[in-house]
């Protein structure tokens, strides 16, 4: 695969937080690739490092976070020509290089539309802000036209009137459309959606998801969808990345992960999804135990304590990735007969 096909290539991403003078590793050796024009779903329980991974890539984390990676490469495709950006080498998280990418190349839709909009500005102005930033010389009237067009496209009713409203006058679903409008207005190639529908009603969820799917299929956008809703994954994703305690435990196509589910954690995750028409007497399964505190983790597989197949070997040392089939990778010793993938993982100095 060449750079035209791959839009985002992440290799051995490690994110460490410093809290109370202690270092806590939240994201550990995460590697994945996103193919252009496809949708990747990142799934896992709350606190597994999904959001932190994406925020590390976008460089949104505060000063108490240390982001290290062998490679975070973004490949911009303009007029058939590929420009490579190595995000891990950009020094200032909010400096001009990073800012030039945010908006026209990559953007993010946040989890909670209620708090993602600035309460004191009109929604239209908030959408237009990015547009005016990245298109020098554009007049306010032109920007307004663009915003109206985007509102129409996103199905916001009465755009001429709503454009001059404040966020508090919008419902949750409409606010999320505005947030998506902010993300989309500069026509970025990569859209990272951090649980975009968790805060919304179920009926609105479907609408927002359709909107995102449409953008992927019609406009050829690449989408990363962070979620813990397996139903959404089945509907939206081309590829699935399962994370547990800051590590990718399984990665593969939708088919690989759903039909040839390999990691015990993924299996447990899929079993715990409620299904309509659950047979009488059939119980919804839960994953035993709770996610451990990242500060308390010892070596070995993080899932071992909750895993029915765990052996002593699981707790001894970090588990490598095994490749079951092309593109389908699992971090579990049960598959140790398969080849190990991932170039020698840079082991970050162990922290306490």
């Amino acid at each position: 695969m060449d750079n035209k096909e791959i839009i985002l290539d992440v290799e051995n991403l490690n994110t460490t937080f410093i809290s109370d003078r202690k270092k806590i590793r939240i994201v550990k050796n995460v590697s994945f690739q996103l193919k252009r024009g496809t949708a990747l779903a990142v799934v896992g329980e709350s606190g597994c490092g999904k959001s932190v991974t994406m925020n590390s890539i976008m460089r949104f984390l505060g000063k108490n976070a240390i982001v290290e990676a062998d490679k975070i490469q973004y490949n911009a495709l303009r007029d058939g020509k590929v420009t490579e950006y190595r995000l891990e080498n950009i020094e200032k998280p909010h400096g001009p290089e990073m800012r030039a990418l945010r908006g026209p190349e990559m953007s993010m839709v946040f989890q909670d539309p209620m708090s993602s909009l600035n309460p004191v500005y009109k929604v239209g102005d908030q959408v237009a802000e990015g547009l005016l930033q990245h298109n020098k010389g554009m007049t306010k009237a032109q920007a307004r036209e663009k915003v109206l067009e985007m509102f129409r496209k996103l199905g916001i009713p009465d755009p001429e009137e709503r454009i001059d409203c404040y966020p508090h006058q919008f419902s949750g679903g409409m606010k999320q459309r505005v947030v998506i409008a902010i993300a989309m207005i500069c026509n970025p190639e990569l859209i990272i959606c951090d649980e975009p529908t968790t805060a919304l009603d179920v009926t609105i969820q479907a609408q927002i998801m359709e909107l995102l799917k449409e953008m992927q299929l019609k406009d050829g956008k690449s989408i990363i969808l962070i979620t813990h809703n397996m139903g959404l994954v089945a509907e939206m994703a081309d590829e699935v990345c399962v994370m547990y305690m800051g590590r990718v435990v399984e990665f593969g196509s939708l088919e690989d992960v759903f039909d040839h589910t390999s990691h015990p954690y993924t299996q447990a995750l899929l079993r715990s999804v409620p299904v309509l028409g659950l047979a009488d007497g059939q119980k919804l399964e839960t994953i035993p135990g709770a996610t451990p505190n990242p500060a308390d983790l010892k070596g070995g597989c993080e899932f071992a304590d909750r895993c029915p197949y765990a052996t002593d070997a699981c707790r001894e040392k970090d588990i490598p990735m095994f490749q079951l089939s092309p593109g389908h990778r699992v971090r579990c010793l049960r598959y140790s007969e398969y080849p190990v993938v991932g170039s020698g993982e840079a082991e970050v100095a162990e922290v306490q």
Partner: protein
Amino acid sequence: MLKFILKKLAMMIPMLLVISLIVFVGLRSTGIDPITFMVPPEVQSQSPEIVDQLREELGLNDPLIVQYVRWLGDILHGDLGLTNKGESVADIIATRLPYTLELSAYAMLFSAVIGIGIGIISAIRQNGIVDYIGRVLAVLGQAVPQFLVGIVLIWIFSIKLGIFPAANRVSPDATNAFVDAFMHLFLPVLTLTIGMVAVLMRYARNTMLDVLNSDYIKTARSKGIPEWKVYMKHGFRNAMKPVLVILMYRIPALIGGSVVIESVFSYPGIGTTMANAVTSMDYNLVLVITLIIAAVMLICSFMVDVFNALLDPRVRLGE
């Protein structure tokens, strides 16, 4: 917006009436007879009938509420009455009040600019040098009594260095009114400002930190706009609101503080007048000054409401 302003203005009137009633009744029920100050003691003891007649003329035998209504009527007609010494209260207020307003207004202005400024820089550069120094100063500023700060400043700038005068507002031999005002105002304003800055700085810092942690700041950054725009346009504007509210809550402390500071600098403002009036039991003067201060307070809180509405569409649009 106009409706909002009118509504707020209308609410001030009953507040003032209630306050004036409470103060009036409170002071009149102290059992101190205003007559004692008007009539020399020998007349009081020799011809009590004169006292009685005067009492009747002044309406002091009427029920309190009648006296209150009459007094209120006088005030509304611009008649503020006399002090115990027979001076016009209106004259005293007219000369003294501007001095205090001048003092408080400058202190307010400087402390708002400096306090909010340092607070916001501390928040943006958290744990930086400004933040560190600011925190130390805030702790000290809240621990040292304000009048002591004034005394120390007098000791340094007036006594040791001899730059600024230690007392009064106007020098008799002043040639340039502006320079004279600056020289006399500098130390008291500085003293008041130090106390206010300590509080404001800490509050502005914490508010700004809260705002900078909110999701819409991340949204703003995701648009790729420069950091100064993120801080000023998205951060500052939202942090202003709670800071303004706290600024309003500090106005009573500022005015209270200026009473003490006026005393330190022998500054001929309304505060020293009030303190003297209380010690000499000049109740008419106390009454009028209290009402004026109450009115100033209400106007300030009204102004904060208006600012608040200007800054926040949720308030402005009345939802």
